[in-house]
């Protein structure tokens, strides 16, 4: 393990130092502007939020993508994987050093929420050590995987940026609101349903006599205000809203963390599998030992040419 701490530090110290200072700076501005303190720190808080948006991407592009791609592009993998340490051990060692470090720095960036106000809110969903840590480890796994496939540093970085953005946007748009079934508030015509304070509204509509949502019939949908139509035709007995209460925020952030950690796990598994089999790089030391007695005899049998050459020689 010491070996890989030394190797990782020796090879990636400037990247690590630069990222760490970025993370510290972001954490400082985010925490110090928390609670709406204004003045000269205002822009700093904004930049801190920007760092929160980008941090996992920085890890994926600058830590993950070049890790294997640079070895392949500069052909130093002959050096890295030509020693007694196998490629798999090499990658595992580096990941055991860089992975926890990335999560730690990510968690640091997720500590504060800048201008999110004194109370927690759904709008500041990504301002969480868990969420940011998950993004960081996922970014690392994604970058390493793409680097192994592309074998070229700049290509790997560009592709990583694209796929990291997709991987952040898609869950945020499609998944995040539905990690748990939403709560529903129903009100009869006399009143209106309310989303509890700081809750996240997900949907609304009309409910029928069985208190289930009903669709709006065509003749009501045509009208400027379908409410009175729905009421008069007795299609609905009231209205509803679906929401996620603020109490679930922490739980959802933890679920987001789990989702990204699982994604990272899948990517790591595929990367290690590729490295072990398909990549074409076998452990170059002692990759196939000759059994001092059995093996040569077998080889001679299987190759009459060699045997003949030997008989002549």
């Amino acid at each position, binding site marked *: 393990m*010491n*070996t890989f701490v*030394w*190797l990782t530090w*020796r*090879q990636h110290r400037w990247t690590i130092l630069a990222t760490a200072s970025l993370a510290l700076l972001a954490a400082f501005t985010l925490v110090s502007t928390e609670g709406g303190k204004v003045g000269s720190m205002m822009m700093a808080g904004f930049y801190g939020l920007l760092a929160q948006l980008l941090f996992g991407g920085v890890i994926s592009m600058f830590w993950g993508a070049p890790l294997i791609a640079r070895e392949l592009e*500069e*052909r*130093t*993998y*002959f*050096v890295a*994987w*030509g*020693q*007694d*340490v196998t490629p798999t051990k090499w990658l595992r060692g580096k990941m055991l050093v860089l992975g926890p470090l990335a999560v730690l720095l990510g968690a640091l960036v997720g500590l504060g929420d800048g201008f999110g106000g004194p109370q927690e809110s759904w709008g500041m969903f990504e301002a969480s050590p868990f969420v940011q840590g998950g993004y960081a480890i996922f970014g690392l796994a994604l970058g390493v995987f793409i680097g192994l496939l592309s074998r070229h540093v700049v290509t790997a970085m560009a592709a990583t940026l694209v796929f990291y953005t997709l991987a952040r946007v898609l869950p945020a748009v499609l998944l995040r609101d539905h990690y748990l079934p939403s709560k529903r508030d129903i009100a009869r015509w006399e009143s209106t349903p309310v989303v509890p304070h700081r809750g996240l509204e997900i949907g609304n509509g009309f409910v029928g006599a069985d208190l289930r949502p009903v669709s709006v019939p065509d003749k009501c949908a045509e009208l400027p205000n379908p409410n009175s139509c729905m009421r008069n035709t007795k299609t609905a007995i009231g209205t509803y809203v679906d929401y996620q209460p603020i109490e679930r925020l922490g739980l959802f952030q933890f679920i987001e963390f789990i989702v990204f950690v699982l994604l990272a796990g899948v990517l790591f598994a595929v990367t290690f599998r590729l490295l072990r089999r398909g990549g*074409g*790089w*076998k*452990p*170059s*030391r*002692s*990759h*196939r*030992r*000759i059994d*001092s007695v059995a*093996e*040569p005899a077998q*080889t*001679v049998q*299987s*190759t009459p*040419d*060699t045997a003949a*050459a*030997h008989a002549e*020689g």
Partner: protein
Amino acid sequence: MSVVAAEVSKWAVRNVSFELPPGSVTAVVGANGSGKSTLLNVLAGHLPPESGHTAVAGRVAYVPQHKPMYKGFKVADVLEFGRRMNTVWDNERADEWLTRFKVPRRLQIGDLSGGQRTHVTLALALGSRPDVLLLDEPLSELDPLARRKVVGELLTEVSDKSMTLIFSTHVVAEIGGVADRLLLLADGRLLVDGDTDELLEQHVLYTGPRVSESPVEGPVVLAKHSKSQSSYLVRSGGTQIAEPWTARYVTLEELVVAHLERAA
């Protein structure tokens, strides 16, 4: 056997088989693009063969043709790297090699000359005490004086540490008196595989009046005819011949060139 290749095929290399005993020094010779590097890559385990298999007894160290090394490492970092990444590491041996060839310790690898970088990669390879050392064009970036010195030192290492050495080259002059085994590749095929001394004893050049058939028995490697003269390089095993023919042994270089010429 220390190294075995059985019907190995990969890209340019086709159906190559050989066995090398421990402690042997083998030269892999061939024209550009004849598959030398591919063969060494397969032996080192960096490329899986398409068919056939290779086997190596013990630990391998491989120095590829372009002498790769991390540019940001200092020379001392390379030794530290070797020590930490290998189960067996002989720091003295690597250190001695660097001292012997006066490699400046304070510089980064990126600032070294090509020859100095070669020495660093060789030191890393030797320091890991390999049982089999594979070198791809090890002398290409060295000056003529350093070449001799490196070859001499490598041979000492081979005999001292009972290491098997395989090196590739396309400069035939480099292998005379060095390699005790010759693997001649042409177009990915193994043309000649044999003990260099035995090969030199077998090949005889016969020169005499112009005739269309070889004057002695045995496989003709190359026949050349001028207006009044014919010369035959025959793998005759040293058959004597009567006047007006003359016979002489050839140098290793002539032997290799003749075989390559025939293959071309």
